[in-house]
């Protein structure tokens, strides 16, 4: 598989009155054709900013790419002009946003909002675009497409709106689909439907997906690979199996430990203590150290490098250093790891 997207040492900052907020502090990752990469992290970890930087939709003039390269099919798009980006957006890289209630234009017919990209990027006539729009609406599971395309967003329910947003994003068969917490604003049954829809479509169109979420349950469902972000950096990256069965970073343990499960007898749900650091003055050493009960002396002084765990699995924690004490994940996390493993066995058994 060839690399579709390669991000190298990307740094994104925001100018504010009190100084420079370093939202993304040097991240590297790549995305292959047809794969789903999940970027996981809590609010403010820089995961949304990363995708906004890829499409160059950072809020101007405060947000800017400080350094780094974003190679799309080998071309560095950080150097692209606004015009070049307009051609790229919607055609090669498109985005599904978080809140379907606000991400559709309230005064434009849904059909027109979907057709807009088709007319612009694929030079379709109005009639052709209409045909294709009906097709897309049917593809994303909106019944009575011919009637629906003449309706306005307020005549759609939340789940239907998100389907329409997905249809907009898919209109031109993008090579990369960025899904920025596409299910966060939806209720649970609708969440499952939208996830299912995105998986089906990926199979059909062979798009790569970057899936932004803070919900590991969703990740387990959709992702081939997972990148865990904390304080503007990727702290652990690996295949979904690596992250769920063999997590190495204490922050990943924290995320897994704080996932609610149905079958556990735990009285209390685990929570990561404290709050993320102030990105105006990022701390020295490991940003997670103050919240990490396994923190070592060195964590407060030096930032850990990426340690290689396996061919696919990397984590940035001093615990992986050869001189570090051997520490096993906390028991509640181990139980969850086993849980995932047995869930997977079950699935394989059925298949």
């Amino acid at each position, binding site marked *: 598989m060839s690399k579709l997207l390669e991000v190298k040492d990307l740094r994104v900052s925001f100018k504010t009155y009190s100084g420079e907020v370093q939202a993304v502090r040097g991240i590297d990752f790549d995305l292959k054709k047809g794969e789903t990469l999940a970027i996981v992290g809590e609010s403010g970890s820089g995961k949304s900013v990363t995708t906004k930087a890829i499409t160059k939709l950072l809020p101007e003039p405060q947000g800017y790419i400080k350094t780094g390269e974003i190679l799309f099919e080998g071309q560095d798009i950080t150097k692209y002009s*606004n015009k070049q980006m307009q051609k790229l957006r919607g055609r090669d890289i498109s985005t599904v946003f978080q809140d379907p209630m606000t991400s559709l234009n309230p*005064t434009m017919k849904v059909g027109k909002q979907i057709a807009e990209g088709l007319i612009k990027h694929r030079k379709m006539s109005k009639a052709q675009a209409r045909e294709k729009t009906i097709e897309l609406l049917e593809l994303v599971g909106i019944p009575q497409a011919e009637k629906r395309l003449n309706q306005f967003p307020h005549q759609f329910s939340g789940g239907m709106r998100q389907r329409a947003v997905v249809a907009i994003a898919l209109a031109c068969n993008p090579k990369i689909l960025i899904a920025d917490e596409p299910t966060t604003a939806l209720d649970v049954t609708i969440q499952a439907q939208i996830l299912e829809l995105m998986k089906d479509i990926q199979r059909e169109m062979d798009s790569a997906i970057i899936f932004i979420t803070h919900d590991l349950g969703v990740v387990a469902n959709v992702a081939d690979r997972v990148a865990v972000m904390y304080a503007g950096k990727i702290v652990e990256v690996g295949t979904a199996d690596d992250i769920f069965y063999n997590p190495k970073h204490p922050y990943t343990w924290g995320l897994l430990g704080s996932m609610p499960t149905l079958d556990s007898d735990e009285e209390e749900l685990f929570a990561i203590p404290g709050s993320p650091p102030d990105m105006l003055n990022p701390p020295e050493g490991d940003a997670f150290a103050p919240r990490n009960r396994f923190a070592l002396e060195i964590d407060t002084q030096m930032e850990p490098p990426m340690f290689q765990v396996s061919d696919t699995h990397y984590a940035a924690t001093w615990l992986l250093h050869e001189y570090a004490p051997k520490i096993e994940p906390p028991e509640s996390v181990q139980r969850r790891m086993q849980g995932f493993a047995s869930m997977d066995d079950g699935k394989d058994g059925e298949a």
Partner: protein
Amino acid sequence: MLRYILRRIFYMIITLFIIATVTFFLMKLLPGSPLSAENKLSESQREVVLEKYGLNDPIPVQYVNYMTGLVRGDLGISFHFDNTPVTDILINRMPPSMVLGGQALIFGTIAGILFGLIAAIYHNGWLDYTSTVIAVLGTSIPSFVFAGLLQWYLANEWGLFPVALWGTYAHTVLPTIALAIFPMATAARFTRTEMLEVLGSDYITTARAKGVTESGIIFKHGLRNSLIPLVTVMGPMAVSLMTGTLVIEKIFAVPGIGEQFVSSIEVLDYPTIMGTTLLFSVLFIVILLVIDILYGLIDPRIRLTGGGR
């Protein structure tokens, strides 16, 4: 939609009836009589005139008489102004005011929206600051100052347009500009603020993510969404512009309704006061209806239905 309009017209008639009644009695409460300025009249002549115009009748009887006439479409005869029927006065005096007000409204709104858009697009640039300064000056400096300046430079110094009076189309230009400055400044301020807010909204990001060009963002996605508050303020402004503005009509010697209205109040010309007030009310109510219909056209979430509640 039709049902909605019919219902609105029904309420309009009731509103007009109430306005007519209230105005009638308030007017009668004003001290003095229509004849107080006519010193040459003897006591008996005075009696004859009062009797002729029905002013000796008890006020309730006068009210009933007036309202009966009104229902038949008869607005009465002016006490002054050569005993012309009020209807004729309105027909003669209304057009200049409507022409000036209408032109000022259209020109002012369009220019204002353009200024506002430029300010929003070049947010915090020098074009934005220039346009904001113009908007503040336009709302705070009274129109007669502009009127004087326009007359002096465009008419007197450079001779481009007639200084004053009414007749050809050229006569309408200067008063229109003077009148248009306030609506222009208001429209510019509202458009700028609203457009900036719209440009920060999620659906604009969605549109950008689709690859829509900047002009598409502004005109196809932004403009319609930012017009709603503007419609709200421009409605009442339209009425005040079209019902004539005394100051501008005086300065440019335009035979409009504004000047007529004020002098009819000075001499207590009851039928003219009533007729003009009712005409203004009709205009206002109709414009309110137009605004509500415009809302529905601009924003599909505001739907007009007959049974609405």
